[in-house]
């Protein structure tokens, strides 16, 4: 594992953890807690992370087969002869 990669991974993890800690301790003014009965808007279909899991799976699978990057949103991926 290269030093460059290890350093970047450690930095990004630290950044994420810091963001979480910051939000929980110091960002409360930016967040408005929403009670369960107030979540009608958040539960709308147009607010879904992925409204269609199977389409997300296909897209993830295609991009995985055509690009070097791994990970991210999307469903499962499997083997593919699309080379």
């Amino acid at each position: 594992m290269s030093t460059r990669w290890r350093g970047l991974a450690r930095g990004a993890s630290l950044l994420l953890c810091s963001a979480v800690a910051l939000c929980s301790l110091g960002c409360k003014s930016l967040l408005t807690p929403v009670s369960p009965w107030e979540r009608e808007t958040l539960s709308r279909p147009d607010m879904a992370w992925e409204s269609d899991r199977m389409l997300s799976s296909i897209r993830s699978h295609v991009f995985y087969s055509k690009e070097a990057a791994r990970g991210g949103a999307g469903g499962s991926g499997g083997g593919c002869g699309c080379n």
Partner: protein
Amino acid sequence: MAATEGKRKAGSTALRALTSGALALPGLAGSARADSAAELFALEYAFSWYQEDDIDSSLVAPGSATERMKIQSHQIHIDKPWSGRVDLDFDLMQEVMSGASPIFVEPGPGGKPQQVMSGATIQEQRTDISSAVNFYFDTGRITGTGGVSTENDYLALSGGLEGVKHFNQKNTSLSMGAGFSLDTIKPVDTDEFPLRPEKENREGYDVFVGISQIINEFAIVESTVSYQRGSGYLSDPYKEVFVGGNRVADSRPEARNGFSWLTRYRHHVDLLKGSVHADYRLYLDDWGITSHTLELAWAQSLWDVVQIIPSVRYYTQSQANFYAPYFDQATDDGYASSDYRLSPFGAISWGVRAETQFPTGQIQWRGRISYERYDSGASYAIGKVATPNPGLVSFNVISFSLMGAF
């Protein structure tokens, strides 16, 4: 003919949970896992047609085929309630693939790289089966997954475990998980192509941790980091490399460590009855590849029954350390690949999909139709690309699905 670089464990834990972990809100629509056990039995079918553009004849070696891959995919998904706190998922995918594929790149007139394609149109079939068991608690969920993916020359077994924990009346959710994949490849036609190995194995592991946070009643954000490790035979047995005037087997390091960081944001604009979707992913690995992915979409709701969702995606990647279109001499460490997927390039895709959900009697229906166009090229990459790989691909994907829950 299968590309091991393109292989992926069925039911990747990290990929699956990155969708489900975010849905830590009661009643949040979507086909990924919700926050409580399914109450209805659901059956969904999807069909996809994928077709690559022919490769430009000016980019291929004389006599090489120009037609590329076509793939038809059939998917089935089942949600099965088991008890008040347990439900089951089942996924089946079957693909039929045909077309010519890139084999290696050689120097043409003036040293310009030209792609050599496979001589014959291949026909292949892939079957991918995965399942999951979900246990729901008052403050979270635990999911166990398992799967099998198989082709005539390839077998992958996978599994994983993930969990979600809610806080602050589910305003905040923490998700984490881990998964593995054990792959075996037995390339075909090894007598005819002696550079291909007889049999190879590889392993893959991934872990992730993510957090989703409601910002207010109109907005939510999610951020997830994941680490992936691959080890064993990571080369592509069906690809070769032009090194010092000779064709040699594609050769990649026996380990790969990757890191990805995905952040997603959703914001509803009540005046327009639609929502903004913004996703960004950073990827880094120790093969020297850095990539950025940005995807934007606008989900327009019509009469609360139909959603029209146009989207655009931008992708850019740097090259692997051991990549070149071809090599004038052998590399110091012996690693070399001319696979376009390890080359520097960028890609822009745009798409549109329409979704609808409606009840008829006791059945809840959901339907979707979508189209996406993907164009890749060296000119789309961040940074100058000295020598574009001639095998870069562009394609169209058309897909539709129908689900009934009862």
